[in-house]
């Protein structure tokens, strides 16, 4: 599919108060998405840091995504402006053991206010543990990504371990924290979104 074809908000995969999720397009891959993964300010916070990332690599990645049943990735879109602001994913989806790894990147600096990220994390968790009926989600975060780690814990994820000296960032070895959440705990959590369905805006 070429770029420019996007679903209207009411047909989005999931809708929250500040963001909605939709499928990713080639326009996204050639646009800000590939640039985010060239930005040291973003990649230094990722446990898996990347090399240079030209648009062709991002398009190839997108094509791989479409063929995969082990990875669900969505565009995170700001509801107010319909701007593509980030990427959310559930990867390593294991249908037998009912687990997956959750991750989120808010690439747009203007939307790093905490609310967009926290809602996106909650929506990804809801999709994994309720819509996909997984038993457990795991997440990882470098200790230098303080806001992301604390936000994830606020949603009910608990520390399950630490991978020491896991990433080399700005000349220093950095530990990576491993977090997990179980479906039974999420179902009782006040941090669950009430719905992922589109609700018409108030007039």
């Amino acid at each position, binding site marked *: 599919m070429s770029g420019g074809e996007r679903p209207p908000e009411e047909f989005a995969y999931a809708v929250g108060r500040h963001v909605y999720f939709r499928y990713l397009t080639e326009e996204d891959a050639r646009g800000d998405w590939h640039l985010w993964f060239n930005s040291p300010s973003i990649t230094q916070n990722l446990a898996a840091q990347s090399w240079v990332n030209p648009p062709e690599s991002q398009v190839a990645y997108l094509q791989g995504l479409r063929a995969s049943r082990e990875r669900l990735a969505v565009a995170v879109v700001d509801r107010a402006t319909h701007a593509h602001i980030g990427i959310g994913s559930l990867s390593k989806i294991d249908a037998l053991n009912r687990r997956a790894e959750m991750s989120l990147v808010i690439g747009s600096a203007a939307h790093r206010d905490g609310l967009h990220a926290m*809602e996106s994390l909650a929506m990804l968790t809801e999709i994994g543990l309720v819509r996909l009926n997984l038993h457990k989600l795991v997440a990882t975060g470098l200790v230098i990504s303080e806001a992301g780690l604390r936000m994830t814990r*606020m949603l009910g994820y608990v520390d399950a371990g630490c991978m020491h000296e896991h990433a080399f960032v700005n000349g220093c070895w950095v530990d990576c924290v491993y977090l997990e959440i179980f479906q039974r705990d999420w179902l009782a959590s006040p941090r669950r979104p009430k719905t992922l369905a589109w609700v018409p805006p108030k007039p």
Partner: protein
Amino acid sequence: MTVTLSELIAEILKVPVHSVTDDTAPGNTPGWDSLATVNLIAALEERYAIQLSLDELMELTNVGAVRALLTARGIAG
């Protein structure tokens, strides 16, 4: 000594308390980033012994909204 909501938020945002108004928001306050939001949520929940739902958290778009939330919870900020 009782710390007012404005003083609490000023401390989190590292700005003078007189600059904190109901319109103070991430979009007009350079220090209000994702870490400041996390610190604000943690401070509100600890100070007022409350647990905020996701819906409530998503409404915290400016200081006025924080004040309105506390009022709705029967808390004088």
